[in-house]
């Protein structure tokens, strides 16, 4: 399994507790449109991602991330820094 796939799976696992509607997750799933998260849910989820990968995702970065795929890419990039 590629590193990216592993990251995707981990991200999907962390999304699960916040996926109240049971949306099927793909690269193009959006946090706001598909998962319908409000800003507090986003904060809790971002904290979970940050703790898991020991990274920091600033609000500036968060504003650019709309889909699960974009988040996985961002995590991959931040992990190597």
């Amino acid at each position, binding site marked *: 399994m590629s590193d990216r796939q592993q990251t995707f799976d981990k991200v999907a696992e962390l999304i699960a507790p916040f996926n109240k509607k049971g949306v099927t997750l793909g690269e193009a799933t959006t946090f706001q449109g598909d998962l319908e998260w409000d*800003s*507090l849910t986003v904060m809790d989820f971002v904290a979970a991602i*940050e703790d898991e990968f*020991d990274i920091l995702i*600033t*609000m500036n970065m968060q504003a650019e991330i709309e889909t699960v795929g974009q988040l996985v890419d961002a995590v991959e990039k931040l992990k190597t820094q």
Partner: protein
Amino acid sequence: MTDTTTPARDLMSKFDPLIAERQALIDSGVTDPFAIVMEQVKSPTEAVIKGKDTILLGTYNYMGMTFDPDVVQAGKDALDQFGSGTNGSRMLNGTFRDHVGVEQALRDFYGMSGAIVFSTGYMANLGMISTLAGKGDYVILDADSHASIYDGCKQGVAEIVRFRHNSVEDLDKRLGRLPAEAGKLVVLEGVYSMLGDIAPLKDMVAVAKKHGCMVLVDEAHSMGFFGPNGRGVYEDQGLEGEVDFVVGTFSKSVGTVGGFCVSNHPKFEAIRLACRPYIFTASLPPSVVATAEVSIRKLMHAHNKRAHLWENARTLHNGLTEMGFTLGTKTPDSAVIAVLLDDQEQAVAMWQALLDGGLYVNMARPPATPAGIFLLRCSVCAEHSSAQISTILKMFRAAGQAVGAIG
């Protein structure tokens, strides 16, 4: 010639959901909580609303300075001597005698070497945060921060990091992940105004210093009655000299309008040369800065008012708790007492029942409130008499029982 123009897309149509929500609220037969008009204001604690004498319990007028005879006289004198307005920026023609005077009063009040006055508290946060934190720097803010702090971040070019409300541990963890060499500004508030809870500033400032951050504290809701000199929560928690910048406002305890930042930083004056919300706006009218100056000087010695304000806060908090209301804080931590309600319907019904009974409080709802809470915010005033406080408690009992918020 063919007409190739298309009709302009109506930019106002994005507000349709807001318009519909407001209409639905008004159609339910209640008074619009966000369109109250004070027809007369009789004192810091009494106004006439819809022809009815009403006790004010939602005004931020914590120290009741708005009708202080010395304060009012200073404003009248300034109007006579300096006219109604300044017509210009502080940087050009907008600095009059009393702008300098009020900045000196702030230095004296806070015991700090630097003071800069802005046209509102909102602009003080907007200006200080966006100017202090530049490209490549980090601003670290509490998730429950006031809109002016969030907007200060948006206006600037720094990287923004949020931590969980009042969590020292979360702040520590996030600061630990930031580049050690980067410039970092931690922004905190002494009192968070929606629930009236206070920040554990002592621990937070210690964590911020451990990670090499500068600290800005917004003390808008604490000036005049926290700490031995009324400087705010930071003074109350023994942090004199530990906080780099303190932001405040004239619109609450001081009783007029305006904002400020005070600091001991030796280069603080440079803010005046670089801060756009300071430079590109007209300065406060002379009557406003004259009233603020007198009010601030009187607040230094307002020990009796301070004691009475805290007594009022305790009495109200205890009374509402005994009745069975759920409040924003377990103990009377500040002069804001938030009554938490189940939903918008109950909050509006309760708010309306109080208003009809002659009491004005603030109704607050998301997104201004944290965690989707609907609440009625009471701000206590040092000028509320003990008799008014007991009347207020009776009104709350009646309204709470009428809408089923208490048994």
